[in-house]
């Protein structure tokens, strides 16, 4: 099996830390070079924090794992520098179809809104994502990625952590100020710390088969069958990935024997029954999974932070695993940087757990609801589910109840202590806690998107109608915000080019279609404050430096 992809093998390279007499100390060690550990490392490197990454293996993710990456994930990857590569290689799709038995029940569009750089979803095998991350790590520099380096022991005191690392050439010890555990669902760091990830295991087994076939057979859409006529289980899912590989998910029920089901001689007839005799295919990879939804109580333990599957796990319906893991690191990197620089108190790091536990609960809730709809818990749930599906064919209200996995949307940190409450009235989605929306803008004649310009530092958006809104006093205020201990870089957002010399830390974005203004519910003078992870933390109808400074203090737990 598997012939469309060649797994890279990365070299184990001896580190000089292995020869040191005393354990060498690093600012940050990341354990695990899965997608989340590497996202963490890239994010910290963008903040000029040197990082050591340790991985027990020497290649990328093997087998059938993540496929769907949602819009917000791609936007984070844009900031980390691999978004375009993912989109170029991946399969962009927005259309989903739901079938019941033999019939198409309805079709939906994941991204009904126009004017975003990124689509609702792309599909791409996880190994490509990881390979591109490794490439980006090498390109960016500042990250010491060590393969075949397994962390076997962790201890911590008030000043940091000490790890024991096992390599092909024996073990050594290292110290760090902060340790980020991205060592996956079976995190050993977690168990070494005496912590647990708690939740429920779904009593169901899924056969996941990746097959290669001619792309003319099926369009790049997500097709989901309930009670399919070709398979006696509950459901089947078909998804296209890169290289003409298709992901097929068969729900097998709890009583299926995973070892038997994994055998090609049992898989091939299932796939054939589904695709029909005419369709030629080749099996790339197959495995049988059970799914779990669980999380840790707290994603922080002193100087150790947990991110990705180590901290929380969801069933794949709704694609919230890797998608939400990248939002963990998006949340943690800037906070760690500010605390390490002594510009924010240690308590800012507690908000990482607060905000991401909240997000994990939302993801677990969504993923559990999808799983319960797909695999009803009892007979009456199944009756309701089938009734919903049969009504959905003709009655739009029922389509909203069908749940074959919801779009993976980023959490809005509505209740975060880092938000500044609105004092004026706003409508729309850009409330404090929300990740920034996107929209086309141009800067100095260069077409692009708003999110290209936001992130890695605090940003302000000042909406203006023209030159007359730009007094010297306003420019002086923006300039002062840029000179502050925690600088805020501002963008003036205007429907047209304004010719005026702008001070350092102030740039103009032309809102070519007026979409930014609309999405932010802005009027002349409206000012938004965004965190380095592009989440809104405050907004006001008139720029007021005292309010902005207070908002930044609040957003940094001061």
């Amino acid at each position, binding site marked *: 099996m598997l012939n469309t992809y060649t797994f890279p093998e990365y070299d184990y390279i001896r580190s000089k830390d292995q020869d040191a007499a005393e354990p060498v100390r690093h600012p940050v060690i990341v354990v695990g070079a899965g997608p989340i550990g590497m996202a963490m490392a890239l994010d910290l490197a963008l903040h000029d924090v040197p990082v050591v990454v340790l991985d027990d293996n020497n290649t990328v993710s093997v087998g059938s794992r993540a496929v769907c990456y949602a819009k917000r994930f791609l936007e984070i990857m844009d900031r980390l520098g691999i978004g375009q590569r993912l989109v170029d290689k991946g399969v962009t799709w927005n259309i989903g179809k739901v079938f019941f038995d033999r019939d198409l029940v309805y079709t939906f569009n994941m991204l009904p809104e126009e004017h975003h750089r990124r689509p609702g979803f792309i599909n791409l095998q996880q190994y490509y994502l990881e390979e591109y991350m490794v490439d980006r790590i090498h390109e960016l520099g500042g990250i010491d990625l060590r393969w075949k380096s397994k962390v076997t022991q962790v201890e911590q005191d008030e000043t940091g952590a000490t790890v024991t690392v096992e390599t092909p050439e024996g073990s050594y010890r290292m110290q760090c100020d902060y340790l980020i555990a991205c060592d996956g669902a079976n995190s050993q760091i977690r168990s070494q710390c005496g912590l647990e990830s708690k939740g429920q295991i779904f009593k169901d087994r899924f056969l996941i088969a990746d097959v290669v076939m001619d792309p003319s057979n099926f369009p790049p859409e997500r097709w989901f069958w309930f009670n399919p006529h070709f398979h006696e289980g509950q459901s089947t899912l078909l998804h296209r990935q890169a290289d003409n590989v298709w992901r097929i998910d068969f729900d097998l029920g709890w009583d299926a024997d995973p070892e038997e089901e994994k055998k090609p001689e049992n898989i091939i007839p299932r796939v054939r029954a589904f695709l029909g005799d005419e369709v030629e295919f080749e099996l790339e990879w197959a495995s049988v999974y059970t799914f779990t939804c669980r999380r840790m109580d707290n994603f922080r333990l002193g100087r150790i932070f947990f991110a990705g599957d180590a901290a929380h796990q969801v069933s794949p319906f709704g694609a919230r695993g890797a998608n939400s893991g990248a939002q963990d690191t998006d949340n943690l990197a800037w906070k760690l940087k500010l605390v390490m620089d002594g510009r924010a108190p240690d308590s800012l790091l507690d908000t990482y757990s607060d905000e991401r536990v909240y997000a994990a609960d939302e993801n677990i809730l969504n993923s559990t609801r999808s799983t319960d709809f797909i695999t009803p818990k009892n007979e009456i749930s199944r009756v309701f589910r089938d009734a*919903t599906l049969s009504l959905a064919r003709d009655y739009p209200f029922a389509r909203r109840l069908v749940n074959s996995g919801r779009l993976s949307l980023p959490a809005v940190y509505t209740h975060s202590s880092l938000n500044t409450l609105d004092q004026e009235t706003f409508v729309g989605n850009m409330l404090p806690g929300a990740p920034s929306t996107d929209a086309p803008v141009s800067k100095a004649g260069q077409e692009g998107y708003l999110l290209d310009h936001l992130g890695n530092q605090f940003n302000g958006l000042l909406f203006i109608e023209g030159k007359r809104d730009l007094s010297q006093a306003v420019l002086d205020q923006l300039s002062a915000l840029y000179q502050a201990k925690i600088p805020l870089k501002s963008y003036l957002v205007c429907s047209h080019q304004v010719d005026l010399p702008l001070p350092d830390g102030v740039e103009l974005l032309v809102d070519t279609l007026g979409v930014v203004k609309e999405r932010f519910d802005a009027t002349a003078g409206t000012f938004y404050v965004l965190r380095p992870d592009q989440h809104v933390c405050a907004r006001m109808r008139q720029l007021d430096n005292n309010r902005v400074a207070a908002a930044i203090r609040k957003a940094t737990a001061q």
Partner: protein
Amino acid sequence: MTKLITDPNLLQPDDFYQELTDLHRDLTPEQSAEINAKLILLLCNHIGDQAVLSEAMLIAKKNLKAA
């Protein structure tokens, strides 16, 4: 806030009741279960008020016969 109407609200209660039971007359228990599920879904959507629905669910759950 709207409240679940628990006072008489049907103009012809006997007609309604007969129609409901007639609907199930020649059905298997499985078919009846299907019809009931569809009815509940249709009516809940029509009502559309989560508080009213929750109140109805709470009442429906009261005084269940022992399993």
